[in-house]
């Protein structure tokens, strides 16, 4: 019975992660052809052993080599990591004060505030990104407001720039930053701050010496929760970003749907996965450390 219970998540991972991964990996080793499916070789089991040998011989790392030759790819990877990194910092700078305010707020208000943070999830992500287009475009709400207030004479070009991508990412992932930080701050005993003050700290010192280190676990968790999905983000850069915003998610989409080059697209996906493994492992380690500290 126990083995069965343990087997369920493994079977799940096998069917929905490992097998698709192996398929993608296999495609990344194939060559592009004008056929259906648009790559070769295909495994021909009716040819028996020799068919399998031919199949394996036809696989190669050509596509991965290609990724290193065209500077579009590594530029896209670097730019994605950079955009994700900067967005994470901005999200932290915006999210921490919000989480802090929530944790300090009156107990009876906290469920409401929590609800307000989660509320945007009730609307489709796509619709919310589209509405940002309406806000940020040259005839959009923001420009109209600023022009009506006589703050600007010419509409600002925000949509189709990297700034719009930052706004989109920060807006979308803000709850993922707020919630873990709030969880960390909310468990903190208020008496700790009083104790720090009692022992000679000013309010600011008490924050740096007590509140900040105690919320660090939440900050790290929040940063990973924003950084990891932001690297592979596709919808936001393609809807809000202009042609100069280079992100690997967009490159992947173009390879796959515009070029119909499945093998190169698969290779891009595999490399992206490898890049993501580093922060994911670090995130897991942070979570485990937090659990040990609590236990």
């Amino acid at each position, binding site marked *: 019975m126990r083995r069965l219970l343990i087997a369920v998540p493994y079977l799940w991972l096998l069917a929905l992660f490992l097998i698709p991964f192996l398929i993608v990996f296999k495609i990344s080793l194939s060559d592009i052809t004008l056929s259906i499916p648009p790559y070769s070789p295909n495994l021909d089991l009716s040819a028996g052993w020799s068919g399998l040998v031919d199949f394996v011989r036809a696989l190669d790392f050509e596509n991965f080599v290609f990724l290193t030759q065209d500077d579009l790819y590594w530029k896209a990877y670097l730019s994605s990591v950079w955009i994700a990194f900067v967005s994470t910092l901005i999200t932290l700078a915006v999210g921490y004060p919000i989480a802090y305010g929530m944790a300090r707020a009156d107990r009876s208000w906290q469920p409401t505030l929590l609800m307000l943070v989660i509320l945007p999830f009730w609307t489709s992500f796509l619709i919310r990104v589209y509405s940002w287009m309406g806000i940020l475009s040259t005839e959009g709400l923001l420009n109209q407001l600023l022009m009506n207030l006589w703050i600007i004479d010419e509409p600002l070009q925000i949509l189709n720039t990297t700034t719009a991508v930052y706004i989109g990412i920060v807006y979308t992932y803000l709850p993922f930053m707020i919630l873990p930080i709030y969880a960390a701050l909310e468990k903190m*005993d208020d*008496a700790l701050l*009083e*104790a720090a*003050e*009692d*022992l*000679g700290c*000013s309010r600011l010192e008490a924050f740096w010496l007590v509140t900040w280190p105690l919320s660090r676990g939440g900050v790290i968790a929040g940063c990973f929760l924003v950084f990891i999905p932001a690297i592979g983000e596709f919808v936001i850069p393609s809807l809000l970003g202009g042609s100069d915003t280079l992100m690997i998610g967009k490159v992947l989409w173009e390879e796959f749907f515009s070029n119909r080059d499945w093998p190169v697209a698969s290779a891009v996906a595999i490399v992206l996965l490898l890049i993501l493994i580093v922060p994911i492992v670090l995130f897991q380690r942070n979570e485990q450390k937090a659990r040990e500290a609590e236990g």
Partner: protein
Amino acid sequence: MSQTVFAPWSDPGAKPLIEFRNVTKRFGDFTAIDGLSLGIYEKEFFALLGPSGCGKTTMMRMLAGFETPTEGSILLSGQDLGRVPPNRRAVNMMFQSYALFPHLSVWENIAFGLKREKQDKDAIDARVTEMLRLTRLEKFKSRKPHQISGGQRQRVALARSLAKAPKLLLLDEPLGALDRKLREETQFELMDIQEKTGTTFVIVTHDQEEAMTVASRVAVMDEGRLVQVATPPEIYEQPATTYVADFIGDVSLIAGRAKPAGERVEIAWAEGQPPIVATSETSLSTDQSVHFAIRPEKVHISKERDETRPNLLQGKVEDIAYLGNISTYHVRLSDGTLLKAQSTNHRRLANRGITWEDEVYLSFTETAGVVLTE
């Protein structure tokens, strides 16, 4: 043999370390502290005792600086504390939850306050080591708070609050989280440390036994007022009001009317019962309504009627609370009044004479009880 008794409160020339002058604290409509004046002297171990919500924690928080009085002033060594923030007071507090910093080791917790004073490294090191020795925590100095036991955590909290050598140490229910056995041991440890360091301690507690054990003086509080401030024996033997008598220890209260006769007073308390004869220090008027308070251990219980005993009353045993060393008998008198009597179990259980439903005789001397007018 002449030994100087520590009693600065009875010396009119002594100046108190802390003085509350007509302090009132209101939270909205609620008056937590109501026009309270009090002096606490140097080297005292002062206990604030009362039920939850009586204002004792508010008093302590005002001393620490977390609350400011609405009216009146608090003086420390003659200086008005006024709005001096908590981080600028020579007062440290040991929190009820201990409030140890979970991300810092025992050593770092104790050093926390010293580091804020920007002392040099050697001085901090020496002081922390001294504190670790005082609280017997040397072995645990590099552990984190979650890696040590409750009793050890309590000692870390104490060491941390003593490290800066405050003029006044505040202890908020310091032993509340410990189990009974450990609590009793720790009480003596606290007294020992207080004596060694010579610091003035103010302890807040709702546990009357704890207050009686550790304190040089106890202040019993009720609804933001001081009901009585006195030494533990005075509080126990001469409670000022029925509230104090009832709050501290076990007591039987009998309502009646006074008939003073010289130093003695006769209390008529029930039809057909002989009056209780007692002594009273306060002068009473005839027919004044009074309460007679008597502690169970001062009531003698016997199965035989001995006419020579004073204040002899007859009743029936209703309940027996057997506590091992002593037994408390709940005796219902013929008029329905319940009186408690206690006797030590100097004989084994099997030989004990009195059991349920027995007819017994209770008696007590004229000085055994107290006559209370409030």
